[in-house]
């Protein structure tokens, strides 16, 4: 009864799409307006933490090798650390703004996890291509969030942060279990 991997990716894509829309709206109206309602302030940290939690069942039910499992485990922990630190910062339990560095850290770990556990080349299959593309998108996200740490009110970095999530959503929606990419599909990937 477990969903096929592509369906899991699409469900994560919906979450990223909604989060990306919210972050884009925050970039448009500014943090002061966005945080006038407390639930909105908690939305991004809460979703980041939830994504980290949901990564554990993905690790348990959908990983087929040790490196695959380790990558998802490390990834889950990094997302939970970033989400928890952001929740504590919004709540006021943490005061030191250096905790914001957990976000670029989580992006960097996520990007590395994608790139390291994908053992095949870009054009092996669509899934392999998307793993590479998502990995590099996450590393770009790490650079953007580092910029956001240095300039928290920059509209460019705030909008860039949102666009990273929208890019994640678009890439995840493109995923299929077995499909070609730009006309390429390795026979080893399950091509008939």
């Amino acid at each position, binding site marked *: 009864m477990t969903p096929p991997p592509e*369906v899991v990716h699409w*469900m994560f894509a*919906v979450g990223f*799409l909604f989060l990306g829309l919210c972050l884009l*709206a925050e970039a448009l*109206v500014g943090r002061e*307006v*966005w945080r006038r309602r407390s639930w909105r302030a908690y939305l991004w940290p809460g979703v980041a933490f939830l994504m980290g939690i949901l990564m554990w069942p993905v690790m348990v039910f959908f990983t087929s090798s040790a490196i695959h499992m380790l990558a998802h485990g490390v990834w889950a922990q990094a997302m939970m650390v970033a989400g928890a630190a952001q929740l504590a910062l919004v709540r006021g339990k943490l005061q030191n703004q250096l905790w914001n560095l957990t976000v670029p850290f989580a992006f960097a770990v996520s990007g590395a996890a994608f790139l390291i556990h994908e053992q095949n080349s870009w054009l092996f299959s669509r899934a392999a291509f998307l793993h590479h593309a998502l990995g590099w998108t996450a590393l770009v996200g790490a650079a953007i969030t580092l910029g956001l740490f240095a300039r928290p009110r920059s509209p460019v970095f705030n909008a860039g942060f949102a666009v990273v999530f929208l890019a994640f959503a678009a890439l995840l*929606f493109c995923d299929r279990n077995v499909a070609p990419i730009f006309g390429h599909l390795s026979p080893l990937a399950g091509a008939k």
Partner: protein
Amino acid sequence: MDAELVRERAEARARIRQSRRHTAVSALGPLTALAGLIWALIQPYRITLLDPDGHSLWYLVVQPPLLVILAGAIFHFWVVPGLLADLEEVEGRSKE
């Protein structure tokens, strides 16, 4: 006189910028839903409800173009109204 003109021009510019923010936030949800609709028209086979007998439960529950439309609709009807109210309040206060 010059100072008054400069102030009026600055206020007019601020009003235009604020209304652009209002329009941009209001457009996010409908644009997302439109993207989902266009996707459904381009790839109708992704709408499994059109052929329910040929698909398993998960593929009937999770249909990407419909989910994109749903995400846009939820954002537009759940997040945007309160956000615009807060934006107008802040903008109204800054004008006073």
